[in-house]
């Protein structure tokens, strides 16, 4: 067995695990599907860019974790699910999961501005996006604590079906978290329960190689996270998280398994964040060659190339989408800016159910 040397934070080097090669050229997609995926990813990207701008202009506060670079995971998984029916559970890096789940951009932006019109009524903030109507179970600010909650939502589907005779209860839950979270006990405890009870859930690890400043290889004894599924008798798959078509394919298969009552899947998407951990992070540990390597694998550019190559869209089509989405994002800022703050008389509202 060859032991890999732990990277020593040398600014000029980086180690890269061999990326899973899936030839997506044979995956059939329609023009409509392709454009839908493209639009969702562009929305994620432009929304986050706008957040950075607004943060630096002092319009939003606290810790703001952007999703740039990881869009193919959110879009690939959530857009393979049933909107408003299936459940999505996120972390503090949750804006884009919320958008893919259908929460209107203006509600997410308003939440970031702390406004009453935000999806969490201005009570949650960047790390706590929730929407009952969109079945977004939330952004969870403590690492790994969303995993049990998502597992509970999946348990609920099974419970309704099996004890309440509700045949329509075939909802699947997608639970997103990071490589860092996969070293936490809640991850292992929940994999055990989900496999034991065959719960309809997708555990989606977004392995972006870093947990703030902790390199994944320095934090775990087995860096190939998807392999951890096997000890629970669970399906574990590795996927190129920069290729939305590959992620979509893997997600569709996992969703089908879950709906058929065949239990959970652990999906490890190999991805990268194009910005620091949060907007407060100076991002000094990641090497320039590593960043360049991943920047050259931009998932949006990749999909654009695939769509053009397959003659599913033209440059102009895509440009048209970019412009439309930029307009939508700009509008979300206007909406957030002009929205009212929460009424001080409602300080205590929502502590308890009315």
């Amino acid at each position, binding site marked *: 067995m060859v032991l890999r040397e732990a990277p020593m934070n040398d600014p000029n080097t980086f180690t890269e695990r061999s990326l899973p090669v899936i030839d997506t050229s044979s995956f059939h997609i329609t023009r409509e599907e392709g454009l839908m995926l493209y639009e969702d990813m562009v929305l994620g990207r432009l929304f986050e860019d706008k957040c950075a701008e607004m943060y630096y202009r002092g319009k939003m506060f606290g810790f703001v974790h952007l999703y740039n670079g990881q869009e193919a995971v959110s879009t690939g998984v959530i857009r393979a699910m049933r909107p408003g029916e299936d459940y999505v559970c996120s972390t503090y890096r949750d804006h884009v999961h919320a958008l893919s789940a259908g929460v209107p951009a203006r509600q997410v932006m308003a939440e970031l501005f702390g406004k009453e019109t935000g999806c969490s009524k201005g009570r*949650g903030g960047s790390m706590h996006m929730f929407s009952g109507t969109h079945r977004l179970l*939330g952004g969870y600010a403590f690492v790994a604590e969303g995993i049990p909650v998502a597992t509970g939502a999946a348990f609920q589907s099974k419970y309704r079906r099996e004890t309440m005779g509700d045949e329509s209860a075939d909802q699947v839950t997608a639970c997103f978290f990071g490589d860092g979270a996969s070293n936490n006990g809640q991850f292992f405890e929940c994999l055990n329960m989900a496999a034991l009870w065959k719960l309809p859930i997708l555990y989606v690890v977004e392995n972006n190689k870093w947990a703030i400043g902790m390199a994944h290889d320095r934090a775990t004894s087995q860096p190939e996270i998807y392999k951890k599924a096997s000890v629970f008798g669970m399906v574990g798959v590795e996927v190129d998280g920069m290729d939305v078509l590959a992620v979509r394919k893997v997600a569709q298969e996992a969703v089908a398994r879950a709906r058929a009552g065949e239990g959970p899947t652990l999906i490890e998407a190999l991805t990268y964040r194009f910005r620091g951990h949060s907007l407060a992070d100076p991002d000094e540990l990641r090497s320039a060659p590593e960043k360049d390597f991943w920047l050259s694998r931009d998932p949006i550019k990749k999909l654009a190339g695939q769509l053009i190559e397959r003659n599913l869209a033209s440059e102009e089509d895509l440009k048209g989408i970019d412009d439309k989405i930029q307009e939508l994002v700009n509008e979300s800022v206007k909406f957030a800016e002009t929205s009212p703050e929460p009424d001080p008389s409602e300080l205590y509202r929502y502590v308890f159910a009315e």
Partner: protein
Amino acid sequence: MAETLFFNALRAATDEEMARDPRVFVLGEDVGHYGGSYKVTKDLYKKYGDLRVLDTPIAENSFTGLAVGAAMTGLRPIIEGMNMGFLLLAFNQIANNAGMLRYTSGGNFTIPLVIRGPGGVGRQLGAEHSQRLEAYFQAVPGLKIVACSTPYNAKGLLKAAIRDENPVLFFEHVLLYNLKEDLPDHEYLCPLDKAEVVHSGKDVTILTYSRMRHHCLQALKTLKKEGYDPEIIDLISLKPIDMETIRESVRKTHRVIIVEECMKTAGVAAEVMALINEQLFDELDAPVMRLSSQDIPTPYNGKLEHLTIVQPPQIVEAVQKIVEMRI
């Protein structure tokens, strides 16, 4: 129902609520086939199946989070803590997610969840199994905290807790499971937020909860013989505190003693004293007294354990002292 043991009263409450509402289910360690460590869920799995009486792995934080997720998506879970102390491992899920999530989500989700089980100091169980946890959870926003003390209120309160739309921490006491009481045959609920006047009197208000209620009643026997007439109030709700009932009593007695099994430092009594000082200072004819357990890990040795917890003679003494006090 005639004479019913405490644990059977809790069992009946669970059974009735499960029969009434298919969304209600129990989960925890050994709640199913084993019947629960104090037999509160005995044989319920035979009636309701393994999914509704769910034996979980020993993974407190995760199964508590699972229950939160199930509650958010429309079920009504009852978690049994095999011993409430084990829920220290679930502190994160209880505080962040059960307690705060409704608020953080701006009302997007409700969390109808009961977390119940044996708490308090038993007999020589050692420090870890003899915790006085109720104070640890006091500061968590969004939780209701209830302590039952008799078979009657155990049943009525548990049923009310299960029907409540909020997360309720429901404390039972290890040494009370074998109490017996005649229970009504008809269905009844007890309000979660109301203190219970256990004995009315006029000399002094004794505020207590859980097992200490019975210590106070024991002290009452002696006190009556000596001509004292204390009012004993079982707080029942440890959060929020029923200040209405306390106010009424203090307006009559002008003296207060708080008797708790909790630690003195930042205990339940500390909070109640603060509330009384804030709201009822003008009514007081003497400083509020508190009898709490000692600020130490509960010792194993029987004599030391006895010394750690408030005993009835101390209550008698405190009443004698406060009633004589003149200011």
